[in-house]
């Protein structure tokens, strides 16, 4: 039992064939082949696998036949069968029985009607397809499953059923109308076909089978009548007739080996059997005609191998489809030829020489198809291993030919091939969706990128996939459009439907449109992309400006981080001064934040929108030992959400660096003001100490030197760096057409500011020099402070001394005692010692300061940036430093000399 059940279906089928026909196994070989093919190709059933449904159907069928008693009997039997439960596929068996059911009252339809037709093909087929007689047992039953293409109206293979559909809907009914005289039903013809077609010629793809199987329909119908004559020609005469050769050639056209002309596999070409006696001209023409078969095979092989390859992608699939379309046209021609041949056969050869099918005629008629097939074969060769946009580029390259026919052909294929690309493109630019499973489109998306970097990193262009008919500029625009839409959706959470952004119609473009669009690149396509680009970018900028206040934030950066809001900064510095003078480790963020808020409330900054003010914050940089508050303090501006795309992390770090620099320069100004204040306040008081006038004078000179320097520096920073770049940025932002423009302008702005503020790597030495100058200023402040302090102290003591003297004199005693005077002199002596020390300190300070400034000037002179050179002129406008430093004299003299000679 077990052994029996495990018997292969083939063996069972064979015994079934024998049993039903009542013939021996050898005799039923063809029927067996047929059975194997039908079953193998209909592997998946089209009906529902429901036992109940099938049994209900059977009951209905019995009722229809008015056999109620039998219906009752059946349901009883069925119930019993269900209780048995040995069979697993009861529905299947029941269905089989149902479909074999016949109404006993009608006469049996088994015998008769088809008899004559059915009998004929068998002997001929046996002879024309010798392949079948091979090993019946070894034939595979396991065809790939393909439920889609199946059509259960006709009983044959899917190839046959789709043939039925095809002939019904087919564009050219020519062969059918020619066949009409004795054409049986489609299904009947199909069954004969299934006998006739070799396995190798029926590809596994359901749709692909249709055109192939269509070809032989013509000659097969009269085959029975033709064969005898054929045979006579082949066997009897020494030379084969042209008719036989034509028939052979028609098979070769479809890639099927003929009787005489066969595929020669080692050389990969069609050859006429050398043993066949044939005159040279016919042999020659046949060889030329056989090329068509070879070309056909080549194209066919490509489409067959590719159409099942899922990873080949949509573009590849549509390329295959377009090739199929061309092949279909070719098959139509073949079927016309076949029907022509058949008409000749029907009417005998005595029709007259004019209308017979000769090899030469074939040569003429197939001239154009051959050119087309040649182009297709070349295309197939060229497109090998390409996919997606690359494939479209390859096809497009073939469109650049002078032959109008070929160009039309390639344009047509290009239209089909570019259709999926165009679909991707429209989905992308109108909906922002990227459904590119096979990586065929030229926009690539990186799913690992988070939304905060969406604009910068998520989407990129896949250069190799840009079809050659789309320019780089267009591709970039396309990328930008979709990116903008995605940015709006994901980052701005803007749920406006894309239709609202784009009033332009987004009609689904048919392939024809696609072809037109790509041929007319300057016109419609360009304007479509431009319109989408313009609208989307404009909408995005509007959203950013209105809802997210991009421009306001930009201005806020300028005002707060780049110290544009002068009163606020000054006030903040006033308030912070005592805090920041302390060591950095004793600073607390919350204290500073409080001070910041006070400063905001006290100045014009309070009129800014709260949206901006709430983002303003204090930040303490990393503390290194010995830092004071001045070194670590920094303002900060919080950015998040959509505007963080413009103000990226790098941008913010740039801003912070610039802020630190400006803050330091500002502090120098502040210190110098303090110095000047001290000088002015103390000048009168210290007039009574003439011995100090020398030092004070020195202090004044040094201070005014420093003031001059810092003023010029501030002027440079404010007007030549910040205002100029800001104006440029503002103009660009106003004119910007998309977000990328703004980002680029902003980056340029920051880069310029960084470079001009000497913060980039090229100006490292200049910046160090400048820092040293700043340090000198701070040192000078402390020195002068201590000088004044001691001087004032001394003054105080002297005044006290004088006062005491006067008091005693009024009391009538001696003003001073000897020891008091000695003490006073000693103190004055000490003061003067200290004083001398201060004087030398000041001298050293002023000397080193001037040295650093000179060094700075030298560096400025040698700098390549023109604005820095101008700064050096401004700093040394009266050639004070030039007179002191020979290095400056040379370089300054050289440039000035050149300038004056120019004037």
């Amino acid at each position, binding site marked *: *039992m077990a052994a*029996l*059940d495990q*018997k292969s*279906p083939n*063996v*069972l*089928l064979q*015994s*079934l*064939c*024998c*049993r039903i*026909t009542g*013939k*021996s*196994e*050898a005799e039923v070989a063809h*029927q067996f082949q*047929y*059975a194997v093919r*039908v*079953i193998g190709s*209909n592997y998946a*059933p*089209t*009906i529902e696998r429901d036992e109940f449904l099938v049994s209900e159907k059977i009951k209905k069928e*019995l009722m229809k036949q008015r056999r109620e008693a039998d219906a009752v009997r*059946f349901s009883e*039997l*069925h119930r*019993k*069968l269900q209780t*048995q439960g*040995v*069979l*697993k*596929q009861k529905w*299947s*068996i*029941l*269905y*089989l*029985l149902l*479909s*074999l*059911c*016949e*109404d*006993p009252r009608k006469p049996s339809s*088994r*015998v008769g009607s*088809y*008899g*004559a037709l*059915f*009998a004929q093909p*068998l002997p001929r087929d046996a002879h024309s397809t010798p392949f079948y007689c091979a090993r019946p047992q070894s034939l595979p039953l396991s065809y790939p499953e393909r439920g889609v293409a199946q059509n259960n109206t006709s*009983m*044959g293979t899917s190839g046959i059923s789709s043939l039925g559909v095809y002939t019904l809907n087919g564009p050219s009914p020519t062969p059918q109308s020619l066949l009409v005289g004795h054409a049986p039903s489609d299904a009947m013809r199909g069954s004969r076909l299934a006998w006739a077609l070799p396995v190798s010629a029926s590809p596994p793809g359901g749709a692909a089978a249709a055109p192939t199987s269509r070809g032989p329909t013509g000659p097969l119908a009269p085959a029975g009548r033709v064969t005898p004559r054929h045979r006579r020609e082949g066997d009897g005469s020494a030379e084969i007739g042209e008719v036989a050769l034509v028939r052979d050639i028609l098979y070769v056209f479809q890639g099927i080996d003929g009787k005489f002309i066969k595929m020669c596999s080692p050389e990969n070409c069609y050859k006429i059997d050398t043993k066949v006696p044939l005159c040279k001209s016919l042999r020659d023409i046949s060889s030329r005609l056989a090329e068509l078969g070879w070309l056909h095979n080549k194209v066919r092989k490509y489409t067959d191998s590719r159409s099942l390859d899922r990873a080949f992608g949509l573009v590849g699939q549509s390329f295959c489809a377009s090739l199929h379309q061309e092949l279909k046209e070719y098959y139509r021609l073949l079927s016309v030829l076949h029907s022509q041949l058949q008409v000749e056969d029907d009417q005998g050869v005595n029709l007259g020489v004019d209308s017979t099918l000769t090899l030469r005629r074939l040569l003429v008629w197939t001239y154009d198809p051959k050119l087309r097939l040649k182009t297709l074969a070349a295309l197939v060769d060229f497109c090998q291993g390409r996919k997606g946009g690359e494939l479209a580029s390859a096809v497009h390259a073939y469109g650049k030919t002078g032959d109008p026919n070929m160009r039309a052909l390639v344009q047509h294929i290009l239209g089909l091939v570019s259709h999926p690309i165009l679909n991707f493109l429209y989905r992308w630019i109108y909906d922002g969706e990227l459904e590119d499973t096979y990586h065929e489109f030229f926009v690539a998306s990186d799913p690992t990128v988070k939304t905060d970097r969406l604009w910068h990193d998520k989407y990129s262009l896949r250069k190799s996939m840009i079809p050659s008919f789309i320019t780089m500029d267009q591709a970039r625009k396309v990328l930008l459009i979709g990116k903008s839409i995605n940015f709006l959706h994901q980052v701005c959470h803007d749920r406006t439907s894309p239709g609202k952004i784009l009033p332009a119609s987004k009609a689904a473009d048919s392939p024809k449109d696609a072809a037109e669009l790509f041929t007319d690149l300057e016109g419609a396509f360009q304007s479509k992309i431009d319109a989408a680009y313009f609208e989307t970018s404009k909408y995005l900028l509007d959203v950013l400006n209105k809802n997210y206040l991009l421009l306001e934030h930009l201005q806020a950066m300028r005002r707060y981080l780049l110290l544009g809001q002068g009163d606020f900064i000054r006030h903040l510095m006033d308030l912070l001064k005592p805090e920041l003078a302390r060591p950095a480790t004793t600073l607390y963020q919350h204290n500073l934040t409080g001070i910041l808020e006070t400063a905001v409330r006290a100045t014009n900054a309070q009129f800014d929108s709260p949206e901006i003010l709430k983002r303003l914050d204090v930040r303490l940089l990393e503390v290194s030992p010995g830092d004071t508050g001045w070194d670590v303090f920094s303002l900060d501006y919080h950015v998040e959400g959509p505007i963080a795309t413009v103000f990226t992390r790098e941008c913010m770090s740039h801003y912070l660096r610039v802020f630190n620099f400006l803050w330091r320069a500002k502090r120098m100004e502040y210190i110098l003001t303090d110095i000047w204040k001290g000088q002015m306040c103390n000048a009168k008081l210290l007039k009574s100490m003439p011995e100090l006038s020398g030092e004070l004078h020195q202090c004044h000179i040094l201070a005014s030197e420093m003031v001059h320097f810092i003023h010029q520096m501030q002027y440079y920073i404010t007007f030549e760096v910040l205002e100029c770049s800001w104006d440029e940025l503002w103009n660009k932002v106003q004119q910007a057409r998309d977000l990328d423009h703004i980002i680029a302008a902003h980056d340029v702005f920051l880069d310029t500011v960084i470079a001009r503020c000497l913060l980039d790597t090229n100006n490292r030495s200049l910046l160090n020099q400048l820092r040293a100058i700043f340090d000198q200023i701070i040192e000078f402040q402390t020195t002068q402070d201590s000088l004044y302090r001691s001087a004032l102290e001394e003054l105080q003591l002297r005044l006290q001394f004088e006062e005491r003297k006067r008091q005693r004199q009024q009391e009538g005693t001696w003003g001073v005692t000897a020891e008091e005077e000695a003490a006073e002199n000693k103190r004055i002596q000490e003061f003067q010692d200290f004083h001398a020390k201060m004087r030398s300190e000041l001298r050293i300070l002023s000397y080193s300061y001037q040295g650093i400034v000179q060094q700075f000037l030298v560096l400025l002179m040698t700098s390549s940036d023109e604005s820095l050179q101008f700064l050096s002129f401004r700093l040394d406008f009266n050639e004070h430093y030039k007179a002191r430093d020979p290095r400056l004299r040379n370089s300054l003299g050289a440039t000035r000399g050149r300038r004056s000679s120019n004037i």
Partner: protein
Amino acid sequence: MSTTAFNLAPLTTMNYMNKNLHRHCEQHCLLLEISRLLNTGLDMESLSICVRLCEQGINPEALSSVIKELRKASDNLKATENSTN
């Protein structure tokens, strides 16, 4: 080889019938009865082959069309033989 396969066919069916358990036999009878009710024209042996094919998961649609075709083919052959004779 082919002839032995041919001869084996009825033999295996007999083995099948003989060795079968009571249940299998009964089931067979039930199916045969249904087949007769529906007038399918299958004899016991063909039916048993069909049952086994169906059990192996073959599409019954295809199988029925094959059987119909086979019948037509054999009828036609007989008819032609008759006419030639």
